[in-house]
């Protein structure tokens, strides 16, 4: 009996200990907000969102690390003025995990979808989970964004998601100093660019005119799809591009195969690539963030990458027209039109609580766009929001990107792989482009394989 009692005490003590340990895991009550009693200063722009004290909005996104800090900083004013708490969670596994979370009934309040294709999937597969955009958001988008941007956030006539940031992909990075030393000028047309490449081959046989890298873990291949898209937009034109995206013409249409061939003329040309890394097959295994780095040690001259490649340069690199690196607009083939390949994230909501609607509306406003531009001190962020004051952008390069995006003569098309069904856009288009380099598959084989996988 003696032993029995002791054992029972031990069991109770153990249970209590465990309970205490579990209780310790609970977040402490947040008492920081109690200090403020009067309406804070500088909150005029936030008055419309009302008092949201004590509420919480969870945000789930693929924006991580350096860019995450800027994102979080851009909500500080909103949190201070409205009292709402924004819980930010960034994940590299975002695309896969978001669907899992929705299916499990554990969706975040707000998600930043990097692809309109993903929005379509969610609307089709989980129509009860996603919430159409509130009126305030729709009104903001009508006044601050062009028609086409609203279209990307709309599925079957219902407007769900407002654009957040924007990417401008039609850039070629180069070293202004190297160009100046060699007496080269930034090419104005596609033919000039090819002529310049040949010139470089002739002038400096130890280097290559182009460098590239498409390795990106699970997403290996996407930088190559951007190349193809940029060329389709230039060689076949925006109308064919739209038909291609909508699958009104097959993926292996001769015009698309021709565009792949044009890209191959650069990226699979042994005389042109892959500066600093070896033969063209190295493009498949070179991390995309490292792709353009040989420019810094004079191993290659040009690297086509989006505006956000700005963040890939090592610390201490000056991005400026007279600095270490800068970018020029990837020229069009006729030298007159100005096709631009763009991309961006879209803000979808999975709950219609007032604080969620308020935050969603805030993100689509000019207030947020300017706030975000101000806190992004390192640069590398632009938006298609026309309420954004270009002067708030951190660098000359961001201003350039923003000007190209806002230029009325620009013909902007959204990244095709982001618009195509997931099985193609985030599937075979990526893997086949990888095979195109790694296995040296032919242009037509690649196009046929992608077409065959279209759902």
């Amino acid at each position, binding site marked *: 009996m003696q032993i029995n009692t002791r054992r029972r005490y031990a069991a109770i003590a153990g*249970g209590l200990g465990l309970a205490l340990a579990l209780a310790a895991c609970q977040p402490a009550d947040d008492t920081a907000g109690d200090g403020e009693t009067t309406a804070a200063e500088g909150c005029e722009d936030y008055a419309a969102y009302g008092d949201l004290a004590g509420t919480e909005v969870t945000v789930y996104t693929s924006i991580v690390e350096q860019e995450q800090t800027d994102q979080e900083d851009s909500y500080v004013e909103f949190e201070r003025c409205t009292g709402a708490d924004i819980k930010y969670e960034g994940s590299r596994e975002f695309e896969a995990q978001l669907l899992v979370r929705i299916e499990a009934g554990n969706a975040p309040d707000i998600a930043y979808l990097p692809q309109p294709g993903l929005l379509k999937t969610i609307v089709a597969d989980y129509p009860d989970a996603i919430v159409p955009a509130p009126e305030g958001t729709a009104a903001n988008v009508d006044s601050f964004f062009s028609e086409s941007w609203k279209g990307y956030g709309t599925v079957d006539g219902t407007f769900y998601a407002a654009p957040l940031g924007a990417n401008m992909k039609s850039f070629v990075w180069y070293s202004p100093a190297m160009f100046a030393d060699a007496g080269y000028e930034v090419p104005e047309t596609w033919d000039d660019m090819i002529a310049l490449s040949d010139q470089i081959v002739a002038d400096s046989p130890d280097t290559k005119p182009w460098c590239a890298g498409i390795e990106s873990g699970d997403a290996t291949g996407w930088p190559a799809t951007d190349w193809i898209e940029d060329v389709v937009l230039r060689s076949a034109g925006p109308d064919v591009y739209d038909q291609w995206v909508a699958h009104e013409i097959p993926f292996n249409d001769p015009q698309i195969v021709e565009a792949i061939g044009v890209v191959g003329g650069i990226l699979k040309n042994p005389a042109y690539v892959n500066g600093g890394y070896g033969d063209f097959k190295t493009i498949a295994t070179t991390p995309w963030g490292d792709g353009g780095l040989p420019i810094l040690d004079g191993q290659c001259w040009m690297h086509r990458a989006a505006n956000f490649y700005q963040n890939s340069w090592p610390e201490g690199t000056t991005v400026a027209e007279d600095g270490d690196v800068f970018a020029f607009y990837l020229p069009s083939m006729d030298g007159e039109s100005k096709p631009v390949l763009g991309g961006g994230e879209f803000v979808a909501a999975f709950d219609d609580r007032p604080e969620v609607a308020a935050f969603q509306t805030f993100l689509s406003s000019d207030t947020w766009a300017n706030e975000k531009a101000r806190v992004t001190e390192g640069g590398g962020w632009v938006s298609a929001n026309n309420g954004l004051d270009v002067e708030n952008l951190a660098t000359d390069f961001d201003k350039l990107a923003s000007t190209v995006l806002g230029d009325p003569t620009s013909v902007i098309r959204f990244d095709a792989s982001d618009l195509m069904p997931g099985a193609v856009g985030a599937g075979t288009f990526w893997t086949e482009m990888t095979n195109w380099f790694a*296995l040296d598959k032919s242009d037509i084989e690649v196009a046929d394989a992608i077409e065959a996988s279209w759902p």
Partner: protein
Amino acid sequence: MLVVIVLFIVVMGAILFLVDRPKRVPRWVVITGFLGPAVLALAFGLVYPGLRTIYSSLFNRNGSEYVGFDNYARAFTESQFQIVLRNTAVWVLLVPILATVIGLVYAVLVDRTRFEKIAKTLVFLPMAISMVGASVIWKFVYEYRPTDRPQTGLLNQILVWLGMDSRQFLLNQPVNTLFLIVVMVWIQTGFAMTVLSASIKAIPDDIIEAARLDGLSGIGMFRHITVPSIRPALVVVLTTIAMGTMKVFDIVRTMTGGNFSTSVVANEFYKQSFGQNDKGLGAALAVVLFVLVIPLVVYNIRQMRMVEEIR
């Protein structure tokens, strides 16, 4: 949160109280008390999802339409999945055999030598590294730079020192799969070595002595005494590593992401289910893996029983 804690205390308290009560408790209450929660958890967390996976493998990508065995047909006929199945077969054949043979030879060589402890620790160390960690390490080892540029990868540096050209180990199929397999062997050899070393030491001394008197030594001793004596342990090691190899996912995903024709079934079913959101095909691939593992599990358990009986 508080509710969960209270619930936990109540349930645990109830179980401990019931089980702890002296004598009069019938046997079946004790058995259900201890076994019940585990059986429930298994049924809910293992059996149900398993059946559910088999069920959803018969449906289309989002589970809205019954497609019969179409997903299985795709998994076995489309060329990209045939490569995946081929790779899995290569993995399951090579990894257990290489890891076991290397582990066995090593165990015999260091047995009762002066450096035994250090030598065994060295081989066992990789076991302590996670698969992802090991993959990252080996990715650096395989790193490629052109021959005339400064090398960052160890292996290519060695090639260059030897006057050869550097090469892209992870790019050219089908040999790239072999270079991935090296990583798994590197990790698993320690496990094989430890288990086999223990059972070599368990061989009774009189048997060894008798064999010595009969004039056996060296390779003869190894072939006729050591290997037959530890046969059951060998089989357990082989099948255990084979099961682990079938599920290999981390190495492939970290090192190549399944690109360049290196994907294996476990990686592909993750990719289809979560990357491509093709639940049906993903489930079908998972079932294929499951079916392939069953015979190994059965054999493994039977061998383990034999080992125990011998003891």
